[in-house]
């Protein structure tokens, strides 16, 4: 039990470093989702089921959802601006 906790904490430390070193934003999102699930497992191991439930719903569902919405909106806005620029050039 203790060895599992120690190993999980080491995995969390490695994951944190991997997240900040990833370049593409979409890849980071996926890494953040995995990181959130690791945390949920850690909360469960350390006898905190309430916080584990919170972390699963927020860290694996709501947080990647928010990021995905923001990235989608940014990409969508970029496409919109490019489209309007070509329209203006056509006029």
């Amino acid at each position, binding site marked *: 039990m203790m060895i599992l906790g120690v190993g999980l904490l080491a995995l969390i430390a490695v994951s944190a470093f991997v997240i900040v070193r990833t370049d593409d934003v979409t890849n980071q999102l996926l890494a953040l989702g995995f990181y959130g699930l690791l945390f949920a497992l850690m909360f469960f191991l350390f006898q905190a089921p*309430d916080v584990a*439930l919170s972390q699963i719903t*927020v860290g694996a569902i709501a947080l990647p959802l*928010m990021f995905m919405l*923001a990235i989608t909106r940014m990409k*969508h806005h970029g496409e919109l601006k490019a489209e309007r620029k070509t329209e203006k050039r056509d006029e």
Partner: protein
Amino acid sequence: MSEKRRLLLFLVGAVGVAAVYCAGIRNMPPWGTYRGPYGDVIASLAVFQRHATDTVNAITYDYRGFDTLGEEFILFSAVTGVMLLLRPETKEKRRRATEGENPASFRDSAALSETVQVFTTGVFGFSVLFGIYIGTHGQLTPGGGFQGGVIIAAAPMLLYVAENFEAFHRILSHPLMELMEALGAAAYAVVGLIALAFGAPFLTNVLPLGKTGDVFSSGTIALISALVGVEVAAGFMLVTFEYLREILSRQKNEED
């Protein structure tokens, strides 16, 4: 400041912080030995004093209910901030007025197979039911208002994935959503004021405590948990809608 210089400055600062931190935790008790008295006191008394079997939620909504009131208002003001920042600008409003925004003309995409649509719409109902269950049983088992609210708020995304844009738009743009969010936040403060009517300090647990293990037990804990669930669900749904509003209207313009 160039990037290399910024990184060097950060590394110097990080080494300093790490050194001071390591010197500071050298004298902490070993990991796994929790000595403090308050946790044990509350763990032994909460079931008898409040008839609630979930000690963590009893602390969140009763013993330290004032902090939770503050955190809920952080949530409320963050949602207000998102709605302020992402509201359509005047240019956008003028363009939309000339082109017209009619939600009834959203097209249900035919590219997605019907199995996925039917299954996802069925899971939507189950998700909402599960969220309500978690939100109302906070005082008995792990759960409570915050978790239940987030589960309910994540359910409409299933409709978006199933490309049922009309239902998605109708649920999320309902004016009742903003009303529910404001009412949920205000009702928490009102429950605290009820205690003043009984002559007790703000946010005291004055409702009947009931039998341990029932759903309607532990007085104001269950009530506050349900109100927080309503507020969190409405808040997250509003935020989701604000992000997707531009994309939804564009989807509709594409199909004309």
